[in-house]
């Protein structure tokens, strides 16, 4: 009797068919509820929801919807700075003290009223905890020792702040629109404080705000869930719940969007976006962002210390070619350190690809046959493509560039230690004021190795220019708005010529969403993204 392979094969076929086809055990959810916004994006950068520590792209956006700040840019008009929890303010004669009056009738999600004590506590907390974004406030001369005297309650609905430095009042107000100026519910936070930590541990995955949404749950690497705050001062948001799903694979985001399982896909690549063109159920919206991609040149490198060489390299970048090819609308050419569309930005583009000009400069600098250099780059798109394009254009002038792709976790320590040659990196402003970027790209008060100004991009590239420093400080401190505007324009133009930075591109975010989504606002900065006006 032979082995009955036919029965075995039949059984296997049925089982394999079951495995391969998978019956629909539940019908796929075709649409999200009308009162719920579901977004798909990459959110594995979240490490905390404490506004005194948040400095990541994802959480910066989330806390903008959970907390109101002292000053704010509202989604209705992103170009105008207005009071957030404050209704009005005035300056002392010397411009160093600002007196604020609170908006009446505001409440936190907990039901506690928003008081000047909460604002003072929130601002002091940032300085005392001294986490990464604290420098936004400590630059004003605030320290854990003096912040109790310099930030204080002055009345039932008023408080004041005093700075010790000669900063422009406009700069101070803009800094108070940053994420660190989020107002937390002091009473609620202190109820959960442990060993005097000011609620640091508790706020990692909880919220205590007065914004349009409250944090319901953060499941690391899975989702963030926000619930609407019915008593928000601008009215209850239309979307009762906002769910942000962690979908690390852009292709999966696209599939879910097309199937209606999510309303918005926030991390699509250009080819994914291109594939959605012509899809009637999806629309693509464009949002100019303040994120910049730049190439920096380490002037501690002997070759790159020559300003003529650096100028030559700026002529060996195919800005327009890249923007029109693989960047495909997601980035536009921008060549100054303050992004286009923001107050005081200079939109000059003095550099284009000009190999002949570059060769002349290289010959003048003593490198007629080029040289060898390394390009340190993030190992993700579009940095690798940009690096490859640069490698090709540099070679036209005899420069042999070796690309060293790295993850950020390996690249940033190298950058901070001044061990790079050329480097491709990105930068976003910390707050919406030109000093935010000038403080990194231009101002370097101490270029010595011992100074360890590792947070300053100019220092990382071993560059300090007395003229640039003076101009940056003058612009920072100028109280007259028009003069300040002109000073920043002049600073940017000079910076383009003499600095070791070739600013190349500014992000133009492309967000794919269902056609019935309206009211989503994504402003220039990473934390100016608002859900409260979204409707379906």
């Amino acid at each position, binding site marked *: *009797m032979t*082995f*009955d*392979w036919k029965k*075995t*094969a039949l*059984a296997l076929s049925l*089982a394999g068919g079951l*495995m*391969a*086809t*998978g*019956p*629909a*055990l*539940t019908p*796929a*959810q075709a649409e999200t509820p009308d009162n719920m916004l579901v977004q798909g994006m990459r959110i*594995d950068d*979240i*490490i905390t929801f404490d506004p005194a520590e948040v*400095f*990541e792209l994802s959480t910066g956006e989330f806390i903008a919807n959970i907390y109101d700040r002292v000053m704010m840019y509202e989604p209705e008009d992103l170009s105008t700075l207005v009071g957030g929890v404050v209704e009005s303010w005035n300056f002392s004669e010397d411009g160093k003290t600002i007196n604020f009056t609170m908006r009446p009738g505001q409440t936190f999600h907990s039901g506690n009223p928003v008081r000047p004590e909460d604002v003072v506590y929130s601002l002091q907390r940032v300085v005392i905890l*001294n*986490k*990464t974004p*604290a*420098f936004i406030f400590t630059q004003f001369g605030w320290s854990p020792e003096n912040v109790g005297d310099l930030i204080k309650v002055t009345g039932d609905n008023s408080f004041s702040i005093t700075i010790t430095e000669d900063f422009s009042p406009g700069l101070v107000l803009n800094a108070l629109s940053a994420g660190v100026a989020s107002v937390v519910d002091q009473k609620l936070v202190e109820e959960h404080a442990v060993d005097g930590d000011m609620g640091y541990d508790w706020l*990692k*995955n909880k919220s205590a705000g007065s914004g349009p949404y409250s944090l319901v*749950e953060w*499941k*690391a*690497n*899975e*989702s963030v869930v926000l619930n609407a705050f019915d008593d928000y001062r601008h009215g209850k948001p239309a979307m009762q719940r906002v*769910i942000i*799903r*962690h*979908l*690390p*694979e852009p*292709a*999966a985001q696209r*599939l*879910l969007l*097309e*199937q209606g*399982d999510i309303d918005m896909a926030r991390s699509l690549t250009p080819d994914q976006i291109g594939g959605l063109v012509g899809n009637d159920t999806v629309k693509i919206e464009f949002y100019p962002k303040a994120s910049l991609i730049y190439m920096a040149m380490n002037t501690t490198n002997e070759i790159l210390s020559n300003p003529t060489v650096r100028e030559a390299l700026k002529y060996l970048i195919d800005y327009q070619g890249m923007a029109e090819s693989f960047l495909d609308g997601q980035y536009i050419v921008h060549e100054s350190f303050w992004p286009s569309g923001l107050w005081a930005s200079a939109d000059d583009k003095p550099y284009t690809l000009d190999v002949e000009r570059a060769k002349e400069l290289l010959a003048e600098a003593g490198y007629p046959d080029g040289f060898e250099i390394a390009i340190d780059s993030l190992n993700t798109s579009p940095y690798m493509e940009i690096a490859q394009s640069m490698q090709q254009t540099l070679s036209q002038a005899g420069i042999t560039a070796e690309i060293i792709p790295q*993850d*950020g*976790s*390996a690249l940033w*320590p*190298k950058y*901070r230690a001044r061990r790079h040659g050329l480097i491709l990196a990105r930068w976003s402003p*910390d707050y919406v004021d030109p000093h935010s970027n000038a403080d990194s790209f231009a101002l370097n008060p101490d270029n010595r190795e011992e100074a360890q*100004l*590792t*947070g300053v991009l100019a220092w990382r590239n071993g560059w300090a220019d007395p003229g640039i420093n003076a101009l940056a400080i003058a612009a920072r401190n100028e109280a007259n708005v028009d003069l300040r505007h002109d000073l920043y324009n002049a600073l940017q133009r000079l910076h383009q010529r003499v600095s070791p930075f070739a600013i190349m591109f500014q992000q133009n975010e492309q967000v794919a969403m269902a056609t019935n989504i309206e009211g989503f606002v994504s402003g220039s900065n990473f934390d100016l993204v608002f859900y409260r006006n979204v409707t379906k």
Partner: protein
Amino acid sequence: MAVGDVATRRRAGQGVWASLLRAALAVARVLASLALTFLGLTAITFFIGRVMPIDPVLAIVGDRARQDVYDAMFLQMGLDKPIYIQYLRYLGDVLTGNFGISIQTSRPVIYDLLHFFPATLELATIATLLGVFLGVPMGVLAAVNQGRLIDHVVRIVGLIGYSMPVFWLGMVGLLIFYARLQWVPGPGRLDIYFDGLVPPVTGMLLIDAALAGDWNVFDNALSHIILPASILGTYALAYIARMTRSFMLDQIRQEYILTARVKGLSETRVIWRHAFGNVLVQLVTIIGLTYASLLEGSVLTETVFSWPGIGQYITNALFNSDMNAVIGGTIVVGTCFVGINMLSDLIYRMLDPRVRS
């Protein structure tokens, strides 16, 4: 009392004590082996983490941190201490159940492991079961019909399943079965509307839903897991089928098989009772290795299907220099390998009388 009786009883008593001693020594050897394995695992992972060109401080404070913030965190993390002191401190914490806090989740690592590992356990178990229940019969079928069409089909299926990049297979699977046919839901373990409906007991949604008697959640969880499990199961199936075929071919050529046939036994009995019985021990090894490799987490499958498993957790931890999470995950994976090895040994004893004796 006869002298012989006393001597016999003495010998019997000594025999019992000897057996107990042998058993105790065996247990001690196993425990010592386990301890050395974990020590080696944690030491290697810890020291690799410290010598990698990744800055664990920057992973917490971020690239933009000023130097004073960086320095404060550097001291807080104890990184100013000699590396062996850092390791010993960490080891001391682990032995008291403290695996530290994860940078990427801000939660205790032990909590993360209890959350992420069951997701992988569930997925890997179903994938392995699919691989075994399909792969083994396929391998036997191919071996019995060596050189015929069915053999070629099985070998091609195995080759494709083993060669196809699982990432690509996952995306194609989503495209076909989710986007086009709508037979399965999209990535994730559950539809968002079912999230949090059943209390987490084991962390494995199918079991938790069954325990809670919530068959809607069970249904939804099953529909979510079937596609990623099938993708991983294809890989397991391909490997198991190939190895089963190879083992079976070795046995079928043996003389005892010819003898069994000559004696008039049915072909089914010859193949399944005699030939297959002699490959079981080898198959246990293969299946154990396959299961263990799936348990360490398939990060690509987890990425495509947004499956919050331990593969993604450890990979993200590595890129974030979150060494607490990396070492914690390594210990879990190491435990799986050791546990599966021990289980395999036990199964050998049950299957092979020679091992028992």
